[in-house]
């Protein structure tokens, strides 16, 4: 199912959430972890949630412009994964610009990262959401296939 772009290997249909149910920050993290956990890349979801909450205490991963990228490494993660989720109405995530967040990318990785893929992936996602065109297109996504197509397009021929 995955597309050709190397970044898409960390996405999958079961890591896609077209509409977040949660309305509060803590609940969103819990919901995103539940998606990752159900997809099978995680053991000890509570331990993973705790790590993500600690990361938020360092400073919100809501990087502004309606986007949040909660992330971190944990022994609770078996394989690097990206959960993509949309909060259609937007929600308060203590974002740096104070604006509600609609687009979420949860990026989780195991402690060992032999090929050193985690930080470059985090950087690439953080970079691509800076483009208004990319954000607007991602907000319109309703299916995993659409996400895949948009990501292929905005990531370009890297």
């Amino acid at each position, binding site marked *: 199912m995955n597309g050709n772009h190397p970044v898409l290997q960390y996405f999958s249909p079961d890591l896609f959430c077209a509409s977040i149910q949660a309305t509060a920050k803590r609940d969103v993290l819990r919901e995103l972890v539940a998606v990752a956990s159900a997809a099978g890349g995680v053991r000890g979801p509570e331990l993973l949630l705790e790590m993500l909450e600690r990361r938020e205490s*360092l400073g*919100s*991963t809501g*990087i502004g412009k309606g986007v949040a990228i909660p992330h971190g490494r944990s022994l609770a993660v078996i394989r690097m994964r990206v959960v993509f989720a949309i909060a259609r109405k937007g929600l308060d995530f203590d974002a740096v610009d104070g604006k509600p967040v609609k687009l979420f990318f949860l990026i989780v990785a195991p402690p060992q990262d032999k090929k050193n893929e985690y930080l470059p992936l985090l*950087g690439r996602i953080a*970079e691509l959401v800076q483009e208004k065109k990319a954000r607007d297109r991602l907000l319109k996504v309703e299916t995993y296939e659409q996400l895949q197509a948009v990501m292929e397009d905005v990531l370009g021929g890297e």
Partner: protein
Amino acid sequence: MENDALKDKLDALFRLQDLDIMIRELKDPPTKGTEEKMGFSVAHLEKLQLARTRLAERIPALDLRLYERISRHFTHAIVSVENRICLGCFMGLPTSAVSLRTEPGMVRLCENCGRILYWLDY
């Protein structure tokens, strides 16, 4: 019940290592400043340090010493085991070690590399 106690013990060390990894990546070159450059807020490192101190205080001294000692030799003191393979050194674990994992209250170490083993099926 004794296995629950071991799980609690390992989970506490697990949390400590997750926190140590986060703090290390924020402080150590070559990753220092990386998240900030990406646009993430890392304003409250002191909160992580405080959480680390509090968590360490709750871990029995012997376990903490073991973790700290192994951490001096390896980037990750705790590693998971998958299909009887230690994911620290990638050596297969003997069947005896696998069956010993249920020994009450004992934190198991990899016989090959000496790292603390975290079993998937606890």
